[in-house]
């Protein structure tokens, strides 16, 4: 039978993939956002698994709020990507270094 550990391991692995994705794809803002989405998905899976195995609905409510905030985060993030692409014609982070110099 499935235990809590199965889901904890799965969401841990998913979280690790997301974090690795952030480091691997530092040049591509869009893939960076996708890796962030994966991290949040791992967190949500963790919350829901805890909610199921501890028989507490609070976990699912919290996952709902995480989804809400993730949706708004991605909306604003994509808007920023679109604006940057419009004004610079690139979203490569290596070429966006006006503030560094």
């Amino acid at each position, binding site marked *: *039978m*499935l235990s809590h550990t*199965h*889901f904890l391991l*799965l969401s841990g*692995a*998913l979280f690790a*993939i*997301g974090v*690795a*994705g952030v480091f*691997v*794809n530092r040049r*591509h803002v*869009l*893939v960076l*956002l*996708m*890796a962030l*989405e*994966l991290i949040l*998905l791992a967190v*949500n*899976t963790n919350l*829901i*698994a805890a*909610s*199921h195995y501890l028989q507490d*609905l*609070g976990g*699912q*409510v919290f*996952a*709902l*709020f995480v*989804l*809400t*905030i*993730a*949706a*708004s*985060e*991605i*909306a*604003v993030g*994509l*808007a*920023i*990507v*679109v*604006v940057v*692409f*419009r004004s610079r014609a690139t*979203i490569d982070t290596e070429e966006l270094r006006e503030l560094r110099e």
Partner: protein
Amino acid sequence: MGFQALLFYALAAVLLTAAVATVTLRCMVRAALCLILAFFTAAMLWMLLHAEFLSILLVLVYIGAVLVLFLFVVMMVERETPAEQRAPFRLSAALVALLMIAELLAVLGSEDFGPAQEVPSTIGSNTQALGAVLYTEYALAFEAAAVALLIAIVGAIALTLRERGEQHRQKPSEQTQASKQERLRLTDGRTEPPC
């Protein structure tokens, strides 16, 4: 190994593979497709955890709106792909769709779910139970989340809105200021040739 465990391992394998593909694939359209597959698989896993409402929410709202928006932006931002690269897109899209259908059939069509297996509880279904606590115990947090969404909408629109010069649209301020002398010219039809 029971059917649920088998399903869990299959879904976990698909989920992790899709996640790895999302962060490693060079082509961003394919990465976005893999992200959609990962989210869908996670939704099916949530179904295994009896979080039916959130699972459906993830498919309908998150995949249906947010990730498709993601795909739009990826296609807009990415440079023009040569024609010979388009056929594999269709192939990978078909593969993702087939996997999603297979997962749906495996999870929703299995005997482990359905009315016979429903856990008898005092509050009713998962959606009812969630609603019962969401609008009472967590009402303040719910309202705060609604405000956060509103701010995000306003912010996203304000960021991407731009004024274009030559746009054909109604300008009510000019329309209400128009006078008869500007718009109307009376002729008797004979002294002047029709234009």
